[in-house]
């Protein structure tokens, strides 16, 4: 490709960051797919991406600079203007904002000035952030410090002074696991059984706790039997869409080679943190499960795409992958049995949309995280245009108990249509927030009781995340299953359960959700790109009692907007961008007291 570059040259440090990254990569296939890792390397070392650095990266990867800039400028974690080397990201999303997040933002503003202030000559800047996936320990913050090596640390619960100390270079304290997994160590757990019980950095500890037994069994069974067990187990995807995993695997088996496997670890749905806890505290289980999935579906290469804001999970998975290669659990000859499976870990860079499967594939290919139109579906045309199997972290990890107990035994757990154990992300106004494991079918009331009950007087519960919906205190007997929540006009989504007490102004919650979708829309299709802007404007007008025309007119317009986004957007983000807002307006008298007259 004949590329044109501006005269800008990279500095010695920028060149070192790029060359170091390229040298550490074992390049495979086309070079453009390494754009995100290289941009991470520049951002991590310098704190922002300059023209010269981008030129150097583009020469190395043979990417046109305009396209590479379009990619860098898509992701919130990449900066294309001079920035201070240290950036503090404070979560002000629905899970944190009513639990100290706003106060923390105010403290940062007092100490560091307005959000986003500061240039390359300054030391620290701060930003408001969408959900950081640390909701059980709200308020949450993430400190990203550029340098060699770069250092990313999360802090939750975060106090202002501690946060500033971490930003100044101190190590963040290790979080208490009991705050994240109150059930840790209890008998009868399946998915969480090793969490907190073994050293998550030790392969031997994992083996001693039953690790790799499922992989061994899978290889004995052969791929056909493995797929059969997953079908018998009636496992469905845990990422939100609830697609039958066995069907997906079976479909992929008859697709042409090469095929790719992807584990979607881009957990970014506000209020969701279950995958993070699994990856931080039982990382080997995910590597084992991916290897089984690769074996069963005939994929020799797996990509583990983890959200960029998960530093501890990333470090633990990197370690687990390294140990597995050292000991022959990954590579050309897994378990000495002639099976080939490689895993490459890739970091996202701050884009909720990349949790959408086809946006994730574009991101892996070094492109903007814009969803593709479906059909064709990934099992036909996926990563690099090849058939691709993509599953969420929790879905993958469920394959281990399926193989150990057998698909039929697994299917006996939970309900007829929602089988197996399930992780729930409980946060907000409850006594003991955290990840909880229960069989599908536990009611909302029972789950909240297990978490110590609601603190204060319950007003509303957000179920399924920002793309889910609200339910009322009268709906506590909803069984937490896919069919049960659907029958109640709600959705289980990624199993977010976030109660709000009656001190919370629901209008503020809805505005934050609208802001989230406006910020996270990729911008590709008109209904979502402009619709999310109009939705936020409309909620602002309603919340501040300044409707255009009457409140009824505005609510009618909001409904039409929601329908167009749901009907005409390309992907699930646009399809669900109005669902939580519409569910709240349908169930709570939020805007009915507002004045009715025309302005």
């Amino acid at each position: 490709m004949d590329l044109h570059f501006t005269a800008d040259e990279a500095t010695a440090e920028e060149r070192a960051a790029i060359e170091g990254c390229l040298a550490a990569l074992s390049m495979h296939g086309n070079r453009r797919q390494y754009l995100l890792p290289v941009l991470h390397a520049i951002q991590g070392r310098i704190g922002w991406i300059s023209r010269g650095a981008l030129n150097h990266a583009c020469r190395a990867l043979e990417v046109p600079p305009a396209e590479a800039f379009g990619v860098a400028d898509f992701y919130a974690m990449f900066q294309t203007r001079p920035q201070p080397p240290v950036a503090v990201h404070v979560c002000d999303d629905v899970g944190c904002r009513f639990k100290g997040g706003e106060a923390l933002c105010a403290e940062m503003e007092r100490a560091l000035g307005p959000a986003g202030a500061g240039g390359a000559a300054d030391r620290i800047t701060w930003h408001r952030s969408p959900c950081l996936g640390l909701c059980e320990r709200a308020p949450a913050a993430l400190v990203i410090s550029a340098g060699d090596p770069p250092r990313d640390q999360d802090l939750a619960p975060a106090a202002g002074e501690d946060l500033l100390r971490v930003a100044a270079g101190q190590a963040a304290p290790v979080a208490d696991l009991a705050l994240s997994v109150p059930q840790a160590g209890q008998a009868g757990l399946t998915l969480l059984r090793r969490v907190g019980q073994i050293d998550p950095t030790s392969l031997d500890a994992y083996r001693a706790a039953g690790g790799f037994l499922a992989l061994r069994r899978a290889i004995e069974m052969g791929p056909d039997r493995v797929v059969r067990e997953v079908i018998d187990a009636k496992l469905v995807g845990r990422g939100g869409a609830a697609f039958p995993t066995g069907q997906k695997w079976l479909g992929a088996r008859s697709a042409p080679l090469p095929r790719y496997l992807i584990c979607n670890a881009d957990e970014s749905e506000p209020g969701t943190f279950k995958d993070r806890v699994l990856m931080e505290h039982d990382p080997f289980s995910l590597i084992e499960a991916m290897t089984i999935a690769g074996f069963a579906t005939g994929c020799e290469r797996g990509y583990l795409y983890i959200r960029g804001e998960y530093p501890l999970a990333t470090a633990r998975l990197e370690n687990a992958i390294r140990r597995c290669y050292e000991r022959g659990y990954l590579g050309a000859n897994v378990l000495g049995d002639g099976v080939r499976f490689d895993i490459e870990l890739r970091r996202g860079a701050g884009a909720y949309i990349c949790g959408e499967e086809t946006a994730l594939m574009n991101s892996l290919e070094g492109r903007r995280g814009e969803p593709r139109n479906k059909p064709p579906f990934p099992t036909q045309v996926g990563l690099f245009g090849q058939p691709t199997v993509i599953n969420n972290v929790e879905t993958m990890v469920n394959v281990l108990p399926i193989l150990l107990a057998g698909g039929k035994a697994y299917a006996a757990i939970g309900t007829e249509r929602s089988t197996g154990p399930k992780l729930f992300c409980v946060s907000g106004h409850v006594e003991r927030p955290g990840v909880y494991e229960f069989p599908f079918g536990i009611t909302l009331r029972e789950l909240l009781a297990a978490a110590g009950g609601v603190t204060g007087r319950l007003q509303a519960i957000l179920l399924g995340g920002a793309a889910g919906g609200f339910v009322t205190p009268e709906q506590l007997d909803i069984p937490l299953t896919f069919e049960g929540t659907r029958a109640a006009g709600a959705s289980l989504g990624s199993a977010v359960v976030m109660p709000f007490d009656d001190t919370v102004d629901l209008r503020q919650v809805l505005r934050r959700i609208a802001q989230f979708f406006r910020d996270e829309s990729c911008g590709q299709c008109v209904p979502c790109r402009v619709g999310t802007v109009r939705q936020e404007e409309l909620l602002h007008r309603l919340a501040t009692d300044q409707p255009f025309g009457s409140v009824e007119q505005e609510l009618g317009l909001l409904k039409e907007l929601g329908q167009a986004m749901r009907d005409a957007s390309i992907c699930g983000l646009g399809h669900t961008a109005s669902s939580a807002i519409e569910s709240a307006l349908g169930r709570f008298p939020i805007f009915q007291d507002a004045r009715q007259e025309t302005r």
Partner: protein
Amino acid sequence: MTGESAPDLKIPVPRGPVPVAPPPRPRNTVELTIDGRSVAVPEGATLLEAARQLGIDTPTLCYLENLTPVNVCRICVVEVENSRTLVPACSRKVEPGMVVKTDSERVRLSRRMVLELLASSVDVSTAPQFQDYMARYGATPERFGPPAPPAAAGERDAARPGHHHAPHGADAATVHQPVKVDNDLYVRDYSKCIVCYKCVEACGTDAQNTFAIAVAGRGFDARISTEFDVPLTDSACVYCGNCIGVCPTGALMFKSEHDMRQAGTWDETRQTATDTICAYCGVGCTLTVHVQDEKIVKVTSPLDHDVTHGHLCIKGRFGWEFVNQRE
């Protein structure tokens, strides 16, 4: 799935890439129903093509015959029986037995909303078909409020992904901003840009393979940009003008046309369009020369021309200024 009727799962474990036969190229006919009328089209045709065969006029903005469909504007959406959402006619392939509605209330609502969202945020005054579409679907973009004032030069280019200023309630956000004039041949007025991706496609693999521009930013701040918003003169641009040729809204415009419009002298009723063959080289591109008051004001090429498919190079597109010199 019961044990007896289950499919045979015995498929050999793949150990490496195996040669795959190229898929057959069937020329079968697919029958489907559109708006209650049945139609037969070749396999691989799109719903848009099938609807056109029945004489149904489907509105399009980001679609063009000579570019790969990107299905981003969503104005061509239609209702397909058993599909949860509407589907884009421009890219969705026909399937046997499909039952399609192109003018249902659901379809009309989404099309109207797409027009309102665009017209409330973008200057569509020079988009030829837009006003017709607005009338056809009864679009009233004013219901989103008066348009917000234009951004300062460079302000939209500096937007930070994932962050924006909270709305204040009085008006509707727009993409209005000053025109970018950084060369003598064409201007970029991104107040008129609906981000249809056509210019990016024409600059890239669909025509020119120059890659001077791409989509940057995210969400409502998504925009067409060179790297770091450098002027075109510092970019990879070769001034073929193929981006102007595909732009559906006049955001990309010959400087000659832009200047005449500014001066109030642009008048298409006084213009003639004459086809000729470009004399610069031996390729034989058809040029359509647009003349007003005995002066060439712009040059295009017919989309359906076998040689150009509407695309030209800098010489054919812009190399006519000397003709206007009378001395």
